[in-house]
């Protein structure tokens, strides 16, 4: 079953800006799906249309086979949204926000309170349950938005840059939490600018640029398409003056650091053999950029050239 089916979706704003140009997209039930794109590509507009925050110009949106136009109540009942910006009432207490949100979904306070307590514990907000939301730190506010989106147990969770501006420790704990939720059966759609996040979490991916879907495939095949990778090598001692790597493209960054561009089919053995022959020892090696990041940039640049 499809958790989300979008067909021929178009959005033209009043100022004439075409934010979405006839896009079609499907997300399978249980998937962890990445919707990526540069700023202003149309990600948030797509999410806005799915969640009814933005009025579409044309097209259809179905959530678990329920047409958003024909049965908006049922379609919306499946959804949970973690928006990009904080959008809760800062004067309300944390627990009130959760119980109130559940109430909007027709869940009584008696039923919602244990669920809210459970989420507050899971997301480490229990100590702040009686605190007005505006007094929370940025990371806590992000966690509150996730708890709020989950309080009615949605089947499709949409996260619009949920980890923007949070520290790495918190980001990693959020990843674990989201993976657990996904494992329990919740379909997740994620937009993020941290491509490492998408690569680690998501199984399928769509890239949107200037209102068009320029790529829609599974993460594995997309990453397999990466034909070259750039590695940064830290060397034990400075490079000798007459150093060269035959047949391998490289660039010297400083005395003891080089950047090497390798074709996928070449592998790393030839590189290490050459270095070894020259008596050069490598201390450490890392990818210059995340693999998905490299592909993403290539695809977006290609789309720019085409357009």
């Amino acid at each position, binding site marked *: 079953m499809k958790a989300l089916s979008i067909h021929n979706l178009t959005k033209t704003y009043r100022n004439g800006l075409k934010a979405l140009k006839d896009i079609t997209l499907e997300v399978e039930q249980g998937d962890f799906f990445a919707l990526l794109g540069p700023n202003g590509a149309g990600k948030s507009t797509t999410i806005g249309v799915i*969640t009814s*925050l933005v009025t579409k110009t044309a097209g259809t949106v179905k959530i678990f086979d329920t047409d958003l136009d024909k049965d908006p109540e049922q379609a919306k009942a499946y959804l949970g*949204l973690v928006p990009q910006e904080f*959008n809760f009432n800062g004067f309300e207490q944390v627990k009130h926000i959760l119980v109130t949100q559940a*109430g*909007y979904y027709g869940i009584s306070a008696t039923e919602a309170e244990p669920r809210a307590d459970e989420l507050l514990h899971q997301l480490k907000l229990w100590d702040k349950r009686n605190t007005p939301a505006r007094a929370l730190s940025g990371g806590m506010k992000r966690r509150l938005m996730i708890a709020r989106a989950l309080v009615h147990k949605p089947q499709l969770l949409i996260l619009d840059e949920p980890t923007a501006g949070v520290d790495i420790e918190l980001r990693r704990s959020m990843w674990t939490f989201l993976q657990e939720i996904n494992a329990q059966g919740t379909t997740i759609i994620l937009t993020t600018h941290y491509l490492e996040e998408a690569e680690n979490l998501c199984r399928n991916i769509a890239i949107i640029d200037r209102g068009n879907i320029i790529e829609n495939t599974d993460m594995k095949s997309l990453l397999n398409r990466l034909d070259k990778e750039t590695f940064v090598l830290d060397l034990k001692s400075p490079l000798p003056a007459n150093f060269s790597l035959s047949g391998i493209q490289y660039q010297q960054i400083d005395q003891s650091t080089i950047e090497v561009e390798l074709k996928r089919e070449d592998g790393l053995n030839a590189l290490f053999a050459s270095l070894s022959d020259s008596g050069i020892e490598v201390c450490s090696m890392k990818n210059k950029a995340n693999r998905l990041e490299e592909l993403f940039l290539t695809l977006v640049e290609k789309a720019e050239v085409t357009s």
Partner: protein
Amino acid sequence: MINSRHWIAFRTLLTREIRRFIRIWPQTLLPPAITMTLYFIIFGNLIGSRIGAMGGFSYMEYIAPGIIMMSVINNAYTNVASSLFSAKFQSHIEELIVAPIPNYLILAGYVAGGMARGLCVGFIVTIVSLFFTDLEIQHLWVTISMIILSSMMFALGGFINAIYARSFDEISIIPTFILTPLTYLGGVFYSISLLPEFWQNVSLLNPILYMVNAFRFGMLGVSDIPITTAFSIILVCIVGLTSFALYLLNKGTGIRN
């Protein structure tokens, strides 16, 4: 069709609205009590004693229903206007748009919240008025239904104001420049029979006149206008405002992109 899910959603929204105005009671419940006490002291006691009887009642008795109605109207309007605009301003209106709540329930929740504050303030002002005059209700059902309908009508007005408002200034313009003058000219402090015929006819265009007089009829048994006319006009206004507010909500004006 209303089902239990809808009922819970409506109750949640109403509870949130009531909790909001109770939480900020020094801004919502206290000021009208103080202002209306001043009205009673200045207009009722000091000036009223020189004016003498009006419509067969002491001036204090005559103005009491109008002052209660005035506070109900203002507070019902202001509550919805400020609450909905704040929700737009802080973007937490999105919580409601994303949730499976039909638009008519969103409207009903906000309006009921406004009515709750209007009636709460009306009750407080009635208690205050008892320190200055004796109140005997002549027609209980007219009194109750008129205060409920009036609060509903102005809560609807506040909702429409907030839908269009783009700044906090725009939610204070209507109360300051339209609502307050209409209230003062709506027969709160005088009977329109005291006005020249031309101004009596002009006054008939003011919907607040009908509310104040119908409410006064309920409490004192006197009115400048027929009660059935008052009820008819208010009901027509409520139907018109409700339809317009729902049209705006369905269209997404002011709340959806």
